[in-house]
């Protein structure tokens, strides 16, 4: 196991860890997982320092330049350490934060998946895989913000975040594609060493597009407003995604591309201007919030602005400050968010106007807030102080920037002091819900809740005091020059500026009775208003489009079919010339095939004419069997078998469903079958004829232009027997050469069955009187009982000998499903469910898909590719040979059997489906 397992581990664990574990066990287990990953990553630190970046490549879609590659250098490592380290604290906190078991399980699944996506983002060695991970984090952020989807604010906040970050993602995508094209490679290692970008014509557009992506993700002005809206997320998510990790993805990409693009004037100006505006405005808005989480969100925006501005500085002057800033901010801001979550949990509110005096009931949390708040304010000896010193030092070269930085620092100090004082020390406001004597309705916090944030502030403090031994080695691999990092770096100008900022912030805090009056509750920033206007326009256009939609299915169909005919017909006409038509018959088989085709066409025509649905369904069955006959004569025995089976089960389904729709409902439609007007009928005939002609032209062109020497087919024919010992070439293609297609196919099939099941069986009221089927006679009952075991036996035979002749996992599944179908017809729903209680379709589907995937993935452990064929070489009688294909086929059998049974169960269910 190497770093390639690193990013998928959390998501896998999220799927595997049972949701109903005791809370303490769950919390410690998952925190331990994140902590373990953290330690594992730390072991890479000396490797990277001594040997340079670790790179792992594995071709995915080489034609598209898509490679599954990992690139671990100092920068990735730093971010991965933050993701796993802060993640451990957050996971521990989460376990005690959610009281509801269901909510906790759902949250853990989402946040673990998010951790995977975030790790994949920072470890990506290819800009396209980076982009995929980037989008995944946006989607998971959406799901986490809308976690309490019953709340309106959560839904709008989530949508806003998704539209902004998703839109930025689109810009980023184009930008990255241009970058890949300009640099000549999509590999990050190649881009970093490429010198083609300096005067490439794409450089300016790609820089703009990538910056839009980074700015939207990292909440830079004017795209910052989604972040305060994202505060509807549960607090652990806000603390993790929206302060420590995801919003830093933009910063990460800026840092990643800084060596390549950082020297252009466009980059430097854009980053400096946007970063400084964001920094100042964020700090200003943070002061004006009364919602604690919104205040923290704006202060995060301000910090992100500072980080952005640092990457504007030429020659890597800002990198050291940015890296220390990223670490410091993650530590104190996550701790502050977690504290706010605890305060809200405890008091039921997070409004600054309603809180006060909490030091009495939350003493430990008060201490955490003081330490984290002072780190945010940049007070020694916390890491925040080191970060601020570094920031001021880096900005010394730009006087105007320095003014904004100092002003923001003053405001941030003021905000931190207000936060600490108001919540924990100030008097409790008059109308506060927490007011009064015995705090009767205060929620007691689990004592272990405090451990996560406590760990974060302890690290904040330790790394501040011991900055040289702790932080310096972590950031060292990213800095080319010698650098100096210490808690106290002497009485220089930066230290002097810190000295000014501190009393300034204290002044701001003391004078707050004077200016706090003017503060209006401003939850709607300019950006959010603009966003709403844009959304309004989109919705208006949507309404206009809706007006052109008549709502009659047939008209939609006519438009679709018309377009299709036009396309197919023209394609057919342009390719049809030059070929010669062969009408000759090759022997009696062709004559028989033609006869079957004629029968099929007549039966299809009859299904149109029959007014009674049952007769039409039977006619359709005849058509299907005739086509099966054509396949058999082709000769395509595998296809014919599947066609016969599917035809049978399809007809059974249709007939069972017809019996569930009451007769009057069908009568009304049938009485108007031919429409009321003759014109309508003629129109339909004309359309059908036009489509028929168009398709005929297309089909003729396809038949005439087919290649005479299909190389792909010949490869398959040549390799089926030697590689797989499969005489049946079709079986070999389905189960091995194109095995991935089959995995996807049965997954779709399983999904379809689940879809039918949820459509029809979601009403779980069981209040029907059991109906005795009319077909339930002693004879039919005996037959049904005998047929099912035989069907299962037949299925086993198909599984075992699938490689030698027709039949595979799919046909085995449908064969067994038909046995069950007979049960439903003869015994009726209730008796079948009772007697066949061992049949659990959902478990079968799950077990089947799992078996297939595990079997396909197993060779990877032995260094073989996904789905590699393994022959077990066990001597067996009766021409049996066992290989991994047998397991694969069994998985398919289980899935198909389960799906078929599930569809049958849903459609055969007698209860009334509740009207929507």
């Amino acid at each position, binding site marked *: 196991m190497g770093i390639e397992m690193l990013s998928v581990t959390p998501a896998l664990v999220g799927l595997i860890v049972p949701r109903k574990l005791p809370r303490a066990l769950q919390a410690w287990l998952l925190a331990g997982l994140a902590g373990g990953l953290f330690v594992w990553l730390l072991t890479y630190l000396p490797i990277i320092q001594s040997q340079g970046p670790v790179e792992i490549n594995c071709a995915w879609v080489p034609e598209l330049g898509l490679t599954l590659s990992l690139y671990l250098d100092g920068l990735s490592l730093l971010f991965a350490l933050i993701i796993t380290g802060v993640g451990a604290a957050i996971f521990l906190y989460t376990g005690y934060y959610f009281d509801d078991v269901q909510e906790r399980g759902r949250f853990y699944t989402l946040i673990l998946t998010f951790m995977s996506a975030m790790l994949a983002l920072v470890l990506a060695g290819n800009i396209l895989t980076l982009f995929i991970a980037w989008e995944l984090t946006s989607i998971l952020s959406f799901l986490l913000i809308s976690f309490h989807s019953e709340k309106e604010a959560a839904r709008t906040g989530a949508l806003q975040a998704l539209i902004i970050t998703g839109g930025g993602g689109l810009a980023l995508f184009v930008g990255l594609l241009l970058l890949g094209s300009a640099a000549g490679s999509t590999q990050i290692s190649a881009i970093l060493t490429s010198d083609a970008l300096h005067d490439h014509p794409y450089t300016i557009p790609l820089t703009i597009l990538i910056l839009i992506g980074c700015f939207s993700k990292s909440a830079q002005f004017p795209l910052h407003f989604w972040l305060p809206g994202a505060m509807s997320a549960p607090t652990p998510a806000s603390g993790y995604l929206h302060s420590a990790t995801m919003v830093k993805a933009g910063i990460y990409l800026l840092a990643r591309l800084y060596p390549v693009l950082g020297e252009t004037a466009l980059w430097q100006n854009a980053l400096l201007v946007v970063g400084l505006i964001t920094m100042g405005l964020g700090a200003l808005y943070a002061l004006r919030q009364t919602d604690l989480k919104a205040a923290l969100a704006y202060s995060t925006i301000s910090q992100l602005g500072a980080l952005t501005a640092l990457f504007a500085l030429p020659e890597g002057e800002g990198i050291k400050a940015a890296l220390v800033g990223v670490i410091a901010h993650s530590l104190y801001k996550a701790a502050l968010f977690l504290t706010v979550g605890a305060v809200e949990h405890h008091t039921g509110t997070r409004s600054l106007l309603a809180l006060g005096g909490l030091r009495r009931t939350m003493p430990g949390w008060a201490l955490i807030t003081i330490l984290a708040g002072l780190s945010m304010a940049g007070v020694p000896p916390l890491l925040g102080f080191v970060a601020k010193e570094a920031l001021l030092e880096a900005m010394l070269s730009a006087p105007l920037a320095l003014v904004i930085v100092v002003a923001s620092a003053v405001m941030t100090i003021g905000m931190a002091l207000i936060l600490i004082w108001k919540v924990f020390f100030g008097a409790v406001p008059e109308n506060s819900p927490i007011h009064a004597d015995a705090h009767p309705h205060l929620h007691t916090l689990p004592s272990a809740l405090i451990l996560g944030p406590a760990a974060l502030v302890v690290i904040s403090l330790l790394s501040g005091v011991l900055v040289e031994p702790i932080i310096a080695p972590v950031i060292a691999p990213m800095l080319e020059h010698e650098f100096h990092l210490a808690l106290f770096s002497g009485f220089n100008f930066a230290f002097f500026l810190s000295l000014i900022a501190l009393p300034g912030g204290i002044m701001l805090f003391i004078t707050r009775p004077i200016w706090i009056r003017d503060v209006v509750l401003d939850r709607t920033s300019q950006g959010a208003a603009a966003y709403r206007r844009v959304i309004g326009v989109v919705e208006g256009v949507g309404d206009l489009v*809706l007006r052109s939609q008549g*709502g*009659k299915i*047939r008209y939609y169909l*006519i438009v679709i*079919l018309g377009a299709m005919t036009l396309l197919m017909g023209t394609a057919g006409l342009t390719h049809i010339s030059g070929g010669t*038509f062969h*009408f000759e*018959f*090759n022997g009696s088989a*062709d004559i028989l095939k033609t006869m079957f085709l004629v029968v*099929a*066409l007549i039966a*299809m025509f009859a*299904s*149109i004419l029959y007014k009674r649905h049952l007769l*039409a369904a039977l006619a359709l069955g005849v058509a*299907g069997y005739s086509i099966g006959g*054509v396949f058999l004569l082709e*000769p*395509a025995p*595998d*296809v014919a078998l*599947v066609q016969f089976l599917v035809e049978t*089960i*399809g007809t059974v*389904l249709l007939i069972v469903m*017809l019996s*569930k*729709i009451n007769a*009057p*409902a069908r009568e*009304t*439609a*049938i009485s108007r*079958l031919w429409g009321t007007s003759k014109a309508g009928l003629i129109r339909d005939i004309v*359309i*059908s004829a036009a*489509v*028929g002609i168009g*398709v*005929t032209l297309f089909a*003729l062109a396809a*038949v005439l232009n087919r290649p005479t020497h*299909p190389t*792909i*087919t010949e490869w398959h024919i040549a390799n*089926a027997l030697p590689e797989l010992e499969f*005489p*049946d*070439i*079709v079986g070999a293609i*389905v189960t091995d050469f194109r095995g991935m*297609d089959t995995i996807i196919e049965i997954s*779709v099939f399983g999904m*379809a069955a689940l879809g039918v099941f949820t*459509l029809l069986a979601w009403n779980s009221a069981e209040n029907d009187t059991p109906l005795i089927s009319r077909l339930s006679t002693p004879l039919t009952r005996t037959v049904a009982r005998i047929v099912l075991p035989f069907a299962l036996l037949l299925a086993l035979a198909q599984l075992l000998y699938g490689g030698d002749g027709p039949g595979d996992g799919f046909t085995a599944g449908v064969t067994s499903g038909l046995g069950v179908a007979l049960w439903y017809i003869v015994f009726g729903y209730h008796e079948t469910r009772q007697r066949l209680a061992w049949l659990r379709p959902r478990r079968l589907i799950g077990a089947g898909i799992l078996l297939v995937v595990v079997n396909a993935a197993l060779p990877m452990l032995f260094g073989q590719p996904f789905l590699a064929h393994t022959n077990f070489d066990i001597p067996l009688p009766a021409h049996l040979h066992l290989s991994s294909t047998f397991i694969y086929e069994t998985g398919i059998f289980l899935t198909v059997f389960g799906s078929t049974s599930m*569809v049958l169960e849903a459609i055969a269910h007698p209860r009334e*489906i509740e*009207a929507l």
Partner: protein
Amino acid sequence: MNVIFAIATGLMFALGVFQLLRRDLIKTAMGFYILFTAINLLFIAVGGFNGIFPAYSQNVERGAISDPLVQALLLTAIVISFGSYAILLGLIAISARRYNTTDSDTMDQLKG
């Protein structure tokens, strides 16, 4: 022979589309089914070989075998069409319960 297949495909498309355009949703579903079948037939028709033996390795020596690749594709196609057909039937069953008719023209409550 393949020309006949092509023409039969076109005819089936015409029948299927006509069936698809009926007001009765059950007939519409049947129309879909005919279209699925027609497409499957075309698959066979565009196969690379005109074989007279099933596509088994032991038949390769004996003469022309039928094209295994299109058959493999066809297997997937049949399964997927059956899955969509099942969902279609489920949708029709539930709308029939809701509107108490299978006449698509009288189902208008979804109009925006």
